[in-house]
């Protein structure tokens, strides 16, 4: 419960801080290492096929943070990153399904409708530190598992894709 309250508080503060910022200017080409590639039906593109984002660009998107335990780690962890819905909004993504793929070739497909207000989060900071490949980085899509029982299901667990490298918005 304490965890939940803390998560909620953080969520509210961050959302309040970031809201209204928006991301009107188009993404330029990435300057650093590309951490995430987005393809498919998106409005903002900086390559032929889609959008390649480095960590810096990711940081310019609306930020969200929460603390939760996960079934793969010991103890509560604080995650920070971009909510998938915010990414969708920022990129002007459309379509009905989202395909996500990891560096270890793990992939999932989820319907667009499953993207909710409070999750999933495309986290690139865990406990304030960037995540390496060994720590399920650079991007780990997590849910606030402690917040809601609905996030502690087999499906949510299977969607918690780590070492995420590619998102494709399809029809």
């Amino acid at each position, binding site marked *: 419960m304490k965890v939940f309250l803390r998560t909620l508080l953080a969520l509210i503060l961050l959302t309040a801080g970031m809201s209204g910022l928006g991301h009107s200017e188009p993404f330029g080409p990435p300057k650093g290492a590309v951490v995430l590639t987005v393809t498919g039906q998106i409005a903002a593109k900086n390559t032929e096929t889609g959008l390649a984002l480095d960590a810096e660009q990711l940081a310019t998107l609306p930020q969200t943070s929460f603390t939760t335990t*996960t*079934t*793969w*780690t*010991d103890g509560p962890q604080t995650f920070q990153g971009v909510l998938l819905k915010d990414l969708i909004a920022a990129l002007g993504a459309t379509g009905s399904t989202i395909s996500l793929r990891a*560096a*270890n070739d*793990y992939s999932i497909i989820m319907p667009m409708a499953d993207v909710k207000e409070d999750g999933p989060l495309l986290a690139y900071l865990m406990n304030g530190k960037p995540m*390496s*490949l*060994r*720590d*399920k980085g650079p991007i780990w899509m997590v849910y606030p598992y402690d917040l809601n*029982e609905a996030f*502690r*299901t*087999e499906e949510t*667990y*299977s969607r918690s894709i*780590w*070492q995420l490298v590619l998102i494709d918005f399809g029809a």
Partner: protein
Amino acid sequence: MAPPFPPFATLARAARPVLIVVLCGTLLLLGALGLRIQSALVSLRSEATDNLYWNLSQLEVDLVRLSEEIRVNVADPAAPLDELRRRHDLFYSRAQNVIHGNGLTRAGLEDLSQSLGRNLEAYLASETPLIDGPDAVLRQNLPAMAGRLVQLREDIRQTSIRLIERLARLSDERRAAVALLVQQMALAMATTIGLLISLLALVILLNRAAIREGRMTVQMSRQLKATVDSALDAIVVVDDHGRIIQFNASAESTFGYARDEVMGHPASGLLIAEDLIAEADGGGAARLGGMDDLRLVDAGRFQTQALHRTGRAFPIELSISSAEGDEGRIFIAFLRDISARRAAETALTRARDEALAAEKTKTEFLAVMSHEMRTPLNGVIASLEIASRKASDPEQARFIALAQESANLLLRHANDVLDITRMEGGGMRFAAESFDLQSHLSDLVEMVRPICTERGIALDFQMLTPSARLCGDPFRLGQIVQNFLSNAIKFVGQGRITVEAEANPLEDGRREVEIRVIDTGPGIALADQERIFQDFVMLDPSFHRAGGGAGLGLAISRRLAEAMGGALGVESEPGQGSCFWLRLPLPLAAVQAAAEPLQPGGPALPAQDILVVEDNATNRAVLEEMLRHLGQRIVLASDGAKGAAEAAARRYDLILMDISMPVMDGLEATRLIRADGASRAARIVAVTAHSLPGDLDRFRAAGMDDVLVKPLSHAALRQILVGRALPEDRPEAMLLDRGRISDLKIAVGAETFARLAQGFLRDAEAQAQRVVQEAGQPGTDADLAAICHEASGVAAVFGAQKLQAHLSGAERALRDGQGQAARARLIAETLPLWAQTRAAVADLL
């Protein structure tokens, strides 16, 4: 009459709550099981289950990929190491899940996953520094790393197999546990359903029983209704508020209302008139109206007045009972119109009254007849007595004797009838005089001895106990014994008659006299023994003509015996003779110095001057002859007026006064004599055939001292001549003559009696006051004597005998020249005596 419940229904009724409790228990159990199953399901669903198999296979996949990269780099030392390092990192990341995550942790698997974690940790710890190290060092170590990786793969493989085995077993266990839960659940469910079905069956059963019960109730109430409707008595049921809730057919015909007209209306005012309810008739009428008065409920039957629809009141008899109904107490009145019964009762009462009146008329007729007969008979007998004494011719004497016998027989008949009449009217009085039992009986026996001797009958008298001097009526006792004796003489033939007598002490000090007259005659059949004591019964009618008697002898004897408080009867066996017995309790006589019983033919009497006032010449002659025989000096007068004149002119010692006379009757003449004249202090004795109750008082009230009842005998005359009072003349009498009062009451009825009593109180009060007042005034003694005489007459009429004695005593004293003493007594005693008398009379009312 409880409806016969089937036993199973009763059982079902008892089982229902038990069943419900058990059902609740199973429901609770079901709930608990449900909760457990739910929690099991929740734990199944929310278990941190990154699929274990997936994790293991991914671990192996990543390991294979890593080993392939190592092999590539071992084969081609010039190849870049980036992909090897990335594969290592991916494997590293996967291994972290095993070490830190709970993807492989399950209850019961901890040891295996921990050992796996430790293996991986050890591997990562040895290899990661090489991966992170310079390329040259890495390349140099690659073959060794490949070897260690193979070893790790083998370890992981072994552990995985064991894990999977273990997991399979655990899953089986868990499935079994859940299955058990589900089984329990199913069992509980089945039980619950079973219970529910039982409960349903029970409810159906009870419902059926209730329906049956209801049907029975309906049937019973229908039967009850039929009973009530067909009841002969009217039945009215009212509720707690007195409103009619049931009214049967008989009630309809009794009260004239249709059932629907009265239902729901209050019974009072409708069936019972309001004014009747208010009336103070002991609350009788209020009862139906106030049926809810609990004191009347179950109080048995009572009668009251009810109201017909037409407004006619009629008598009813009713009883009220009550019962608890559904809506409070109800009151059930069973009632019956008793008009017809009342009418019958009235008719019966009237018939009885008429019969009584007829009886009274008969009695009076008989009394008058006996009087009318005895007066001439008196003359006949007396004349015959004189004639017999004077007859010298034997044949003449025989005829006279026959005539005497016949006259005596006739007189006996008249006396018998009069006795019966007297006793019927309750007017028989008994003397209380002293007599010696043995000598009295001896006299009686000796009287019949001549006739017994004549007929050859042996006659004995035995006193079996010491004799006693008793107080009673020797004449009536003698009458009974004589009757026994004459019967015995008639029937014994030439046998023996034994008279036995006993006087046995009783507990209260009295003596029980038993007299037995035993004969050796033919006896009396048992069937006849009771009949002979009835009026006018003769066993042998032919004997009547021979033996005489109207068949009243034993009947009169029995009445006499019972009236004196005794009893008589007969013991007899045909052929063995009879024993008639009389038992009579009598008190011992007080010791008396004087009043020796006078015997006929006693000592010579001193000569007195006697005036005989008698209108009947024969009677006059008889009296003259008898008195002359007794050595008296006699003057005769033929009516009351002449007698009174004679008495006034000359002083007589004794005046014998007939009562019924032309010109002036004896009473009037007596009053005249008492009022003034030379003989006003003479003893005046009434000579009369009137001997009905009350006569004596009338005579006394007129100033007479005694009475001589016709027919006259020497003995009676002797008694009068020696101045002996007749038995009725008791000195120091009671305040009131009860006999006189009861006679009066019987004669005039209670209502008139009360009126007379009131009149007496008024008149006597005035008389008493006047006497006292006059006694204090200087008037002549004669005037005062007249006033006393009048007052004593008033007192006598109502039987105030003590007051009357006082007044007539005073009157006599005044006439005898003892005025001073008499006046003093009158002043001192009259008013207190009157006060006592008044209280006694008031008590009667």
